[in-house]
């Protein structure tokens, strides 16, 4: 079983109130993440400009083994900034729950679908890989999720991130939902769990059991509110459940993690 870790310490992790990495720290952390064998490093949000863009560009220049991705709102200006950063993967976050669409954006589901196509088109035209994140998928209507996935797939997207933005899911629901998505769509699934009720790791393991290939983690589980799926806890659980990591590797990974945490 091949589990690909998408590390979002430098993006979602850094969004925890009170954390602010300088560009040099971001580069050092990225190199350490690379030495952990992380598949993909979500390096930041180019739309923030300034020091953030500097840090991301320097990480891209390092030529790491890990793939580098950047995070965007579903916004053409955000995406223009991201394209300038030369990151390999451009992630577009798409609010899919009615709470997010109506209250936060004050838009409609139709607007979401139209903009989704526009944003994907912009990225694919420039020859980059695009992944779509369904923000607040756990509270979204299943029918609309299907429409979003179908629209993304039609535009050439091969990977969808399912986000439990407010951490309310439980294992059985995660398993059933991932299984259903896997069966209905030929797409890679990436899982993004928040830890509001202490279940981010358990839910991520459940998602992998059902066929999710990509798991979002942060070092130390840092992130908004009670944080994200903790990298060390996840690999420990994944090792016990799936036997995917060697014991020697595991101890080395914990040492590297300690070093990364010292930057916080």
């Amino acid at each position, binding site marked *: 079983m091949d589990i690909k870790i998408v590390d979002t310490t430098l993006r979602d992790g850094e969004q925890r109130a*009170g*954390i602010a990495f300088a560009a040099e720290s971001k580069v050092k952390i990225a190199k350490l993440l690379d030495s952990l064998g992380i598949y993909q490093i979500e390096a930041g949000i180019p739309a923030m400009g300034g020091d953030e863009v500097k840090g991301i560009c320097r990480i891209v220049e390092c030529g790491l083994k890990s793939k580098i991705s950047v995070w965007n709102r579903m916004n053409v200006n955000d995406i223009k900034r991201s394209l300038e950063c030369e990151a390999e993967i451009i992630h577009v976050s798409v609010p899919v729950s009615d709470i997010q669409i109506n209250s936060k954006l*004050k838009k409609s589901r139709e607007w979401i679908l139209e903009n989704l196509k526009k944003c994907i088109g912009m990225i694919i035209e420039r020859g980059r890989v695009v992944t779509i994140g369904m923000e607040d998928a756990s*509270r979204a209507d299943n029918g609309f999720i299907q429409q979003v996935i179908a629209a993304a797939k039609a535009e050439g997207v091969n990977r969808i991130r399912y986000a439990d933005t407010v*951490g309310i899911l439980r294992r059985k629901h995660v398993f059933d939902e991932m299984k259903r998505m896997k069966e209905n769509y030929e797409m890679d699934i990436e899982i993004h769990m928040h*830890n509001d009720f202490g*279940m981010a790791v358990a839910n991520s393991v459940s998602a992998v059991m059902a066929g999710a290939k990509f798991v979002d983690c942060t070092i130390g589980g840092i992130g*908004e509110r009670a944080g994200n799926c903790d990298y060390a806890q996840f690999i420990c659980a994944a090792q016990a459940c799936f036997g995917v990591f060697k014991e020697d590797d595991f101890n080395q990974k914990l040492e590297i993690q300690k070093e990364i945490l010292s930057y916080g």
Partner: protein
Amino acid sequence: MPNIFLSDQPIKIIDRTLPEMIYSKDTVKRLDIISMCWFLKELGVHTIEINRQVVEKMHVLPKGLDFLYRISADEKVDPLILQRVNGFIITRRELYKTGWLEFLAERNPDITLEIRIEELTRVKKLKRLLQKGWLKDIKTIRILGMNRFFSSEWVEFLRNVCNDMRIGMDICPENRFSNATAIALEAVEGHFDAVTVSFSGFSRRIYGYAALEEVLTGSEVLLKCGLKTNLKVLPEGCNLFMKMMKLSIPNGKPIIGKDIFKYESGIHADGIEKNPTTYEPFDPGMVGKKRNLAIGKHSGTKAIIRKLKELGIECGIEEANRILELVRKRSIEKNGELLDRDLKEIYKVVYDGY
């Protein structure tokens, strides 16, 4: 979101924090232990697990609280304890001591047998005990461990085992692989008789248990199962726990972490301002907390304007943009959020040209 309506029979919440606390730090004070008992009851715990060390510290068990006493076969059974506690918990060591268990059962029939089971395939040892007649004086089995119960399939399996054995079942998951709370909530939803937890998942062992506050809040918010709880007392209980154990609770700990309702990122700040449910699974007031807007690297202009307004300063978008640049720079220099005085200083710099 799943919305499960459960039967009228609420699961019993058993808390085992006290013996763990006293084992770890035997300098805890008597009055603090008693305060902890009352906090647990107020929070929504039905039964408090204690042992000889806890009783020695308390001297007298407070009235109005239910206790489950962990008794060892080496102990002389104190008649006062026999009268005062609601039940006993034993392990297999006590089970095999001829005559002792019958003596105990005659005096108090509410006996729980704690058995460690790490994998679902090992549940058959329960059936072996039953077949050999060892369980005739046992009212409830407590399953301890469950560390390798990686999927929720255990619920139906164990429910069937309970029904076949006609015995009560108490679930006490450990948190070695970070799945204890998930298992505990499955137990609540699965109509088991009891779930045993500890405050913040605390244990003298390295792995801990399911966290009481996560299970209670999860039961209320996610399962809506009608447990009688008062989660607003959590901050007070946290302070008591930290004082007794001379430990800090991590700032991001689910439900009780100091900073879990602190938000900074522009997107989140904007969403919360318009409707807090965009980025909050439940209202902070439910657990005795308040949300708190922080200013730092990820802030947006609207947050700057709002924060300055809180400080009694009016500011437009253009000015806020200039302030934001300096806020980000200062936040990176500090590697952290800005205090109110930092923001006021930056405002002065922008407006007074210092």
